[in-house]
């Protein structure tokens, strides 16, 4: 079983990202589970969401305490000392940031890739919602699921202009990070 934690702020679509990743996993033939850390959500407040993906049925319902990877939607959350709590050895984090990946990797002592997802989202959809770009980047890094599975999950959730713009965004974001460099850890 693979476990992921998504950190963001209210309004950035962290819970939607978790649902999209789970739905994409289902499209690709896996079982999945996604849920938010249950707070009283409001814009700007830290939000955490969890995803589990497996080939077998998933029974565990606790929060994710030892994630394989983190997706960080808001670089200001890097100041939270609990952000990387429980991150598995060999795990990594994908951060929505314009910083150099090496800097973040060095600061946290784990694998880290930065993707300027907000900037990409502004260019493609005109709104600072980084979630779908990060998911596309995450799939490229981990080779966890085919990009088509994410596109299928998006098609199930959005339509019209919003869908088309997001499909363009994920196509761009998928090519903005190195392919498969986290695959080994993902298979471990």
């Amino acid at each position: 079983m693979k476990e992921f934690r998504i950190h963001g702020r209210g309004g950035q679509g962290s819970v939607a990202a978790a649902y999209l990743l789970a739905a994409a996993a289902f499209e690709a033939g896996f079982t999945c589970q996604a849920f938010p850390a249950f707070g009283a959500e409001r814009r700007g407040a830290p939000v955490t969401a969890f995803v589990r993906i497996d080939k077998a049925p998933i029974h565990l319902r606790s929060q994710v305490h030892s994630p394989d990877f983190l997706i960080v939607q808001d670089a200001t959350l890097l100041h939270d000392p609990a952000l990387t709590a429980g991150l598995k050895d060999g795990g990594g984090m994908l951060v929505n940031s314009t910083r150099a990946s090496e800097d973040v990797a060095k600061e946290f002592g784990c694998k880290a890739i930065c993707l300027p997802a907000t900037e990409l989202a502004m260019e493609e959809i005109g709104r600072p919602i980084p979630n779908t770009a990060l998911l596309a980047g995450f799939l490229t890094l981990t080779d966890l699921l085919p990009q088509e599975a994410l596109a299928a999950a998006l098609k199930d959730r959005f339509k019209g202009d919003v869908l088309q713009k997001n499909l363009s965004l994920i196509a761009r974001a998928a090519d903005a990070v190195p392919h498969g460099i986290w695959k080994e850890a993902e298979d471990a």
Partner: protein
Amino acid sequence: MRKALEGSQAIARAVALCRPDVVAAYPITPQTHIVENLSKLVAEGDLHTEFVSVESEFSAASVVLGAAAAGARAYTATASQGVLLMSEVLFNIAGLRVPLVMTVANRAVGAPLSIWNDQSDSMAVRDSGWIQIHAADNQEAVDATIQAFRIAETCEIPVMVCMDGFILTHTMEVIDMPDTDMIDGWLPPYEFSRNLDPAAPTSIGTLVTPDFFAEMRHSHHAAMMRALEVIEQTDADYADLTGRASGGLLTVEGDPDAKVGILAMGSTVGTLRTGMEHFSDEVGAARLIKLRTFRPFPSDALRDAVKGLDHLIVVDRAISPGLGGVVGTEVAAVLADVEGAPRIHNHALGLGGRDIPETIYRDLMQTVANPDAPAFSVFDVDLNKLQPEDR
């Protein structure tokens, strides 16, 4: 069809499959998404029902009571303080023997104010005379919702389908949704034997004198006891339809030769299952008992389920202050006259949304080995958070 769905979304679709004539509900966390999704189904033309927006849970319960008494299939959903605001009407619905289905998205009851999950709310109306079925996962919640209409209408007793708030309502997972044709063939149209009809006027809810009150209570209790068989039969019939049973009254899994059993209701069962996989080498395997039907209480099935056990750990997700766990106390009462019955270890855990990690299996199993462990405890309490006089 199998699909990745959020629990609440799946419940709304399951309700729609049952073609309710009237839906009335007031949004409250963590039930809100169920009502939102139902409202969306109505707006998009996928559900043809009288959707009544009300100003409180008291009104929601009153609307569905009136609707069902007038021959309409009716549904509502609530949680926590909403259950309590409804409670007067809930007793009336059950006492009048009006069939209805309600989802409770289980949440703690304030004070202290909490929006998070435990089962204090449905426990607070334990004695209202409703059937209570607890779902361990979202598939079970969907299946129980559909079954609930048939059970309610067969027994003329309202059914509360309890699902852990957030842990199930807000979790997306893979759910096999039955299709419309399947359910249309399985759930007959609602016909109420005591339909309010202007052409044949009757009164309901009249004053019952001491000459008849005890008889009414006796008949309600007897009907609840007969419902045990209906619940089992309905689950079996549903399994014929879908190939999937939820386990009627209760189910037993795990090591059949185990001397220690763990009984739980709701979503904790899954976490215990995973915990047992990971920790049975360390603390041994257990017999897991998933209690699905809480009211009527399946006493005979429980007595069978615990045969051969030396110890039974009962997990409660609510507490009766001044006594202990509710389920634990009831299990102890049912087993009191059983020779060689297991010793009961009762623990309330996951209160007010405290996360239940898989290590809970190991921790619970270890209490059995400790002869000094109290018969009841609120588990996972950090006494350092309390003033010395409150410990």
